[in-house]
């Protein structure tokens, strides 16, 4: 059984990576491991992998930062991935982001792109229904 903190959550697990496309798979694997530890099903983990990948696509293709901060937050009902990169040069209305949004709409309970301080934050939440 996964260890949870006093708030009933695993993590948050935080990872800082350079905006290197080849690291997308590494982060999917990390997310899979965390979700598996938390008891998520194979289908739910497949959705989480897609959500993580879409968040990274948006940050790598549209951000200009030297690093990307990714966070996984898991509680008993949801797995949320958040990614941040400096807001400079990031156009939240770029039409190329529409396909990311469409995919996230299909696999996530909720998702969004926000400005937090000087960063663009992209987040996506997958629900854990099989509890």
């Amino acid at each position, binding site marked *: 059984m996964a260890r949870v903190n006093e708030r009933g959550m695993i993590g948050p697990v935080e990872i800082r990576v350079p905006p290197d*496309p*080849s690291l*997308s*798979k590494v982060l*999917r694997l990390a997310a899979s491991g965390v979700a598996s530890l938390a008891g998520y099903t194979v*289908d739910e983990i*497949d959705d989480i*992998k*897609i959500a993580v*990948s*879409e968040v*990274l*696509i948006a940050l*790598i*293709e549209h951000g200009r930062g030297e690093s990307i901060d990714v966070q996984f937050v898991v509680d008993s009902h949801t797995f949320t991935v958040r990614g941040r990169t400096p807001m400079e040069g990031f156009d939240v209305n770029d039409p190329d982001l529409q*396909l*990311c949004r*469409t*995919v996230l*709409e*299909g*696999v996530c309970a909720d998702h969004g792109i926000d400005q937090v301080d000087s960063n663009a934050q992209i987040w996506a939440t997958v629900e854990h229904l099989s509890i």
Partner: protein
Amino acid sequence: MTETGSPDSLTVEVGAHGELVVTGDIDIAGGPILDSAITDREEHGPVVIDVAAVSFIDSSGLRSLLGAARRARGRDEVVALRNVGAEVARLLEITGTTEQFEISAASDPSPAGSGESADSDGAGE
């Protein structure tokens, strides 16, 4: 087979009948490799892509496939996806792009180009 690309997470080979055989993850790292392989094959006629060994696909991979489909329409051709498994079928279904391709599902013995969609035979989740 002739290997045309070999990144860590994706390989694209040309099969015995000229089809592109894709193995691995079509993601932000693999998408450009697939793009390049498709562009090379377009010079030789209609593009057929065997995706039986695709273990993951995201919107960047889908963009590669949709770009190929768009260019094919310009030549009065259609991109055929063979052996479409659940992962690819689901992303096509989510994005409403299934009809951009001629699809044969993994369990479908009929050849690509039969016009049967992954949705119609239950390959989607």
